[in-house]
Every structure is written in structure tokens, then in C-alpha cells.
């Protein structure tokens, strides 16, 4: 990474070339149009300056063909750029189902990450090259935003909900991570590094980290400790829905069918009244204030793992 004068950011994800292609097309278009207009004004200013011997006549101050022409031309150009940007955006929205799930917590003023195996990192994240990675993000306090310029990705981290950012790195190396949403005193210190490694190196690296229970195991322990299993367990007396196999599948609720994604699970735990599973009584208590953001992520990981055994459809 060279110091001094930089003009181009690193380009290290599958998104980067796509975004750059549109970006530089826009640079070319904006540059051409801007310079054309500037040139036009300069030429007029020189040719028609007062006392210059130029051909003039009393202009009519309007020209319908001109006006129609440029109005439709701008509309068409705008439509093309819009469609291009929107098409890529929609395509990038879809997270590959085989993505490696990393959990991330943002708080004033640090990033905490946990790998599926339970390995923890602060202000740093190691990921394998060539594999889709999705970071499931939660905030403990205010809004933050996870921004990795070299990947051309950014996602706000909003308290009270779960958001996701995904990418597939294409180059090994160290790339900057920023918090892009102003979050208070040390906002500019809320930075870190994403380290992209070859998949083998990544596996080695994981092994070398302090061994902790995996996210799902931690979630399972919580599931018992918090008494969820008392209702959701197979031998329970209270009638509560079976959680195995629901993840990423449509579930029927009293207000309509929704997909049981991370946000749905979160809501079920914090605001059980928001979506009541169809055919059940709304007896589940809210765990709002009893579980931290990190614990929520562990619970979600556990419930997700209950579905992994039988192939998550997507």
C-alpha cells in the first residue's frame, strides 16, 4: 500500500470492479458533459463579448426543438444510469446461501467480531479469499456503519435490529475498516483492519486462536439458561412451536406469512407480540433487556444451527 498521492482505492472484492465500471463510466460522462458546457460558455464568452465582431442577431430566446431534445436526452441518460445502478444493487442484495456467517457487534467505539467457531476479534476481522462472507451486524448503542472501501461495501449498524453486510474478497492482504456513521467522541478511532487470507491459511489461523465454544454452542447454553427450552423443548407442557428447521423458511403468523430470518428471530425474542405464530397463544414473554446484543446473535446462531442439519433452502 503506497503512501503519498493516491487516486485509486484498493480493489479487493467481487463488487469492486462492478462498482468501478459504473463509477468511471459516470466520470467519463460527467467529465465530457461538464467540459462541453464549460467549453461552450467559454467560447460564447469570447465570441460574443461586447464589441467583438461576431455574427449576432436578436435571438428569440427559445427553441422548442432544442428544449425537447435536451429534456428527452437527459431523461434517457438518467434512466440508463438509474437502471444500471439499480440492477447491480438488486443483484448484490442477494446473499449466497453458502456464505460464511460472522457475527459483528458495533459499540462506541469498537468493532467486535465472532467467527462461527467462537473465535473472537476486536477491530480486526480475518476472512478467507474467494468465499462469500456475511457479517451479521448488531449495535449495542447508537447507529454505526461498517465500511470497507476496498470492497466497496457499507452497511449501517442499527440498534434494535439486525443488518447484514456481505462480500467475497478477491485479493489477500490487509484492508481498512471504518465506521462511516458518526457515533460520538471517538468516531474517527472506530477503525480496524480486514485481513484476507487464502482459505488454508484462514483455517490454520482459526485453529491457532484461543478455543471458545462455538456460537451455536453458546446459544444452546443460553437457550437452556434463559428457560427457552422449558417451552420450546420437546417434552414441554406449554404448547410452543418447534424451532428446528424454521430458519430461512416461511412461517405462518397471525398477521401473514413471514420469513424466519435473523430479524424475525430477534423480534420473536424481544417483541414476541409483533408476530405471533399462527395457532399458538401469545404466552411467550419478552426478553427485552435480559439478553445482550451478543447473546441474541448466539441464540440466532443456535436456532439457525437447528436448521442446518437439514439443509437450509434459499
Amino acid at each position: 500500500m503506497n503512501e503519498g498521492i493516491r487516486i485509486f482505492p484498493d480493489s479487493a472484492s467481487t463488487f469492486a470492479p462492478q462498482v468501478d465500471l459504473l463509477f468511471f463510466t459516470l466520470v467519463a460522462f460527467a467529465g465530457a458533459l461538464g467540459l462541453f458546457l464549460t467549453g461552450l460558455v467559454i467560447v460564447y464568452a469570447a465570441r460574443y463579448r461586447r464589441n467583438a465582431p461576431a455574427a449576432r442577431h436578436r435571438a428569440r430566446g427559445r427553441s422548442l426543438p432544442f428544449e425537447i431534445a435536451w429534456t428527452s436526452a437527459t431523461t434517457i441518460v438518467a434512466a440508463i444510469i438509474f437502471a444500471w445502478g439499480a440492477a447491480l444493487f438488486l443483484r448484490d442484495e442477494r446473499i449466497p446461501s453458502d456464505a460464511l456467517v460472522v457475527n459483528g457487534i458495533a459499540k462506541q467505539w469498537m468493532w467486535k467480531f465472532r467467527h462461527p467457531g467462537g473465535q473472537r476479534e476486536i477491530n480486526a476481522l480475518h476472512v478467507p479469499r474467494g468465499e462469500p462472507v456475511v457479517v451479521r451486524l448488531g449495535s449495542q448503542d447508537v447507529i454505526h456503519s461498517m465500511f470497507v472501501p476496498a470492497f466497496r461495501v457499507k452497511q449501517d449498524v442499527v440498534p434494535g435490529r439486525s443488518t447484514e453486510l456481505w462480500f467475497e474478497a478477491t485479493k489477500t492482504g490487509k484492508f481498512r475498516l471504518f465506521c462511516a456513521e458518526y457515533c460520538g467522541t471517538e468516531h474517527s478511532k472506530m477503525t480496524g483492519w480486514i485481513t484476507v487470507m487464502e482459505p488454508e491459511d484462514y483455517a490454520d489461523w482459526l485453529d491457532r486462536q484461543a478455543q471458545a465454544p462455538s456460537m451455536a454452542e453458546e446459544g444452546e447454553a443460553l437457550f437452556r439458561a434463559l428457560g427457552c427450552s422449558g417451552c420450546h423443548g420437546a417434552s414441554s407442557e406449554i404448547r410452543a412451536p418447534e424451532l428446528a428447521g424454521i430458519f430461512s423458511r416461511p412461517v405462518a403468523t397471525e398477521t401473514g406469512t413471514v420469513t424466519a430470518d435473523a430479524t424475525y428471530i430477534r423480534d420473536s425474542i424481544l417483541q414476541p407480540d409483533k408476530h405471533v405464530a399462527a395457532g399458538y397463544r401469545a404466552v411467550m414473554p419478552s426478553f427485552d433487556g435480559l439478553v445482550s446484543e451478543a447473546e441474541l446473535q448466539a441464540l440466532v446462531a443456535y436456532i439457525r444451527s437447528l436448521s442446518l442439519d437439514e439443509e437450509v433452502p434459499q
Partner: protein
Amino acid sequence: MTDAVTGKAPDTGSYLGEKHGPRAWLLSFDHKRIAWLYLLALTAFFFIGGAMAVMMRLELATAEGDLVSDDTYNRLFSIHGIIMIWFFLVPSIPATLGNFLLPLMIGARDLALPRLNLASWYVFMGGSLFTLFAVLMGGVDTGWTFYTPYSSIYSNSYVSAAAFGVFIVGFSSIMTGINFIVTIHRLRATGLTWFRLPIFVWTMYATALVMVLATPVLAASLILIVAERVLGLGVFDPALGGDPLLFQHLFWFYSHPAVYIMILPGMGVVSEILPCFSRQPLFGYKAVALSSMAIAVFGFLVWGHHMFVSGQSAYAGILFSLFSFLVAVPSAIKVFSWSLTLRRGSIRFPTPMLYALTFLFLFTFGGLAGLFLAALVVDVHLHDTYFVVAHFHYIMVGGMVTAFMGGLHFWWPKITGRMYPEFWGRIAAIATFVGFNFTFFPQYILGYLGMPRRYHSYPEEFSFWHVMSSAGAIILAVSYLMPLVYLGLSLVRGRPAPADPWEATGLEWRTSSPPPQENFDETPTVTGPAYDYINPEPEAQDKGAQHEHGQPERSP
């Protein structure tokens, strides 16, 4: 007295000479004096806000955060934004030039509601001084955007007081807006039909509509913040059962249209200056007039483009992106029309014209940058980086402030009865152009490189562009201080201005400089279109005409 047209010495019988003393100014209902009250207050705010900007640029001249602490830096950019947006840009042209010129341009004696006009100034002063007081007490560190739940729960600065002051100032906007709408509907001179109005009046009308319709939503969201902070009402903080994104929706529902409050008047000013110094009617008058209205309407449909990465649904993002591209069309129409106004003109380049051309250039490049930000995937990368900072400074400073300076010089003879020094004016205009581009062009590059905004310190690799930007800021600051000095001096030393120093066509030039208290000695009537300029070079015209008829051009 009917020789107002030929011009009289200033001060005799003018609104400036009527009555003296602070009471006569502070309690005057005369729109011209109220315009001065606003002008003085806004000038003060502009330089306070500007001083904060200079401090920030000095801090950013080095990568480490060494000049001020991080908390101080956060307060600097917050106050810079709050002052510049709400206490300068929103009222700038409407409350000063608009207040002064609107009645003159439509041939009226005053605004329709003179008392409301004076009241609006007091409300403005009350609210803005209250916020300034909060700043002196310890500052605000939420940014001008007050995003929740940071602003409502976590920040330990004087958020409630600052938000309350902004809330109050909102009422002064609404008052001005109502006043302008009523005035334009009711007080136009005989013969002054809608499509004979100068574009400046059209833009005042569009601006006033947005002020009246959007500001209440801002008021609501600010009050909700205060309610959550003070009363613990759960509105935006999820810990209290609220929704933080709700605030962003409410806030941008106002603040996006507010962007048009902050640029439409500037468009109005250059639409007056360009035809005057080209001796040509404004190209595509009707399209320009109606595009202002289109901007005002579409402006209400694009607020979600500030939230593409906030976690709002992807489909909402796509819809907002589409509308944002639509808003680009009327703006493009204006740029083309302004450029073509020069064609076949007979162009002079005094200070106002230099500012207007600077506006044209900077607004074009700021607007084109907007296309990048409206394009969804590109915005994902550029959002909340210096690219956005550069984009809106090109529009707000390069556009609006430049137009304001142009307008101030253009109408200075009318307002004060004195000419400003042309030489210094041109130097200042050129310095603005140079300083501005040095300050803000590097920020486009910084943004693309990934430099986030609102950073007190930054990685070494961004240094080069930051240093360039800081150097430019010094030139820019000087270019704004110069007019303060020479315009101030011209008040006493300037050459007396004739009624119509630019040979311009608007009604405001048909009365003496400065105008009498009742504006016109005789109520004017209008018989022709706006911008009825006649090219003063008949020989050139003849030659042009021959050329048009297909005869070979004689070599001169």
C-alpha cells in the same frame, strides 16, 4: 416627481434617509429595512460558521488529531453545519435579497404582511441566539443531522437547547414563506402576469412553498427528540421501544426539500444576472420557470436517497433512486438554458457576471456529482464519505453562496445607492473560483478513496488531498473577507449609483437607487415580457442578419 427613472442623488427621500436611530430600524415594517436587519445577522452567522470551517480545515491539515480534541472537533463540525444550514443558507437569499427585491420586482409598496415580516426577524433572532447560547455553554456534538438515538439518548452535549433554537427558527421560515406566497399572489402590478415575472420571483415562490410545507415536519422531529431526551418518551431509541430510522425519515423529509430551499433562490439570482450582462432574453424562460416548480414538487419524493445503506428495504431504495434521477432533469434544463442565454449576446464581465459564471460552473459539477450518489451501488461506496461533502459544498457554497455574492454585488447599487469598487469585486470573484476548487475538488477524490466524513484524524495515506483542501480553504476564506471590507467601505466612499447602472430591465431598476420608502413614486405598469433586452450593437446585428440570409461574410 416622475423623474425617478433618471436617477437621483442617494439619501434624499430614500428609505435610508427616512428616520434614524436604532428604533427606526429595529421597529420598521419597511421590507427594505428588515432586509438589512437580516443581512447584518446573516453576515455575522456566515463568518462565525466560516471560522469553524477554517478551524476544521486547520485540524485536518495533518493526519493526527493534534490541534483540537476530538470532542472539540465534533462540536466544530456540528455547529458549522447548524449555523450554515439553518442560520445562513435557508434564510440567506430569501430573507435578504428576496425581502428587499420581491416587492420592487412586482411593483408593490411592501410585502403583503409587513408586520409578520418584522416578527419573522425577531423569531429568527430569538431562535438562533438561543442556539448560539447553547454553543457557548458547551456545544452540541450530534452533527447538524441530529441522528437518533445518539442525539436523543447518548450525547451529553446541549442537544435539547440547540434543537429547540432550530425549532424556533423554523417558524421564521414559515412566516417568510407565507408572506412571499401571499405577496406574489396578491400584489403584482397591473400587467404583470405569471409568465412575465422575473425568474427570481418564480424561485421565491417555489422556495416559499417548500418552506411552508416542509418545515413543520422538521419541527415535529425536533420536538420528538426533546421529548425523548427530557421526558424519556420512547420514540427513536429501540431500548425504549422506539425506532431510530423513523427519525431519519422525518428528518430527511424536511431536509431534502430544504436543500432546494437552499439552491432555488440562487438559481433565481443567476437567471437575472446572465441575461442582463448578455443583453439577451433568458433562454427558454417558460421551461426555466416551470422547472423551479418541478424541482419543488419532486424534491419531496427523494428523501430516502440519504438512507440507501441505513437498512431500509431495497425496493424503497430503488424507488428513491429513480425519483432522484428525475429531479436531475429540471436542473439540467436550467443549466442548458443558462448556457444558451450567452449565445449571440453582447457580453460584459463585471463582478456579478463573474460570480454568475462561477455559479454555473460549480453548480454543474456539483449536480453531476449528484448522479453518482443517486446511482445505488455507487452510493453504497460513497455514502458518508468526503465525496458527499464535496457534492453538497459544490451546490451549497459553490452554488448558493456564489449566487448570493453575485446578487449582492448586482443589487448593491440599488440597496445602498452606492457603487462597489469593480476592481476589487473582480479579484474577489476570481479568488472565490480558485479557492473553492482547491478546497473541494480534492474532497471528491478523498471520498472515492474511502475517507469517511466527520473524522477528527485520518490515515496518513489521505494526507496529500487533505493538505491541498486546507490550503484552498485559506484562499476561499480571504475571498469572502474581501467583500466584507470593500462593500463596507463603499457604504461611505462609493460612487453614488444611478437608478439603473446595469441597464437592466426589471421593475426594481425603474425606481431611484436607493428606492424611496414607498418604493415607486408612481405605481408601475407592465406591458412586456421579462428580460426584454435589446442587443446594443446594431452593426453587429446587421452583419449577423446578412449572415443569416446566406450571404458570404465580409472579412472585417
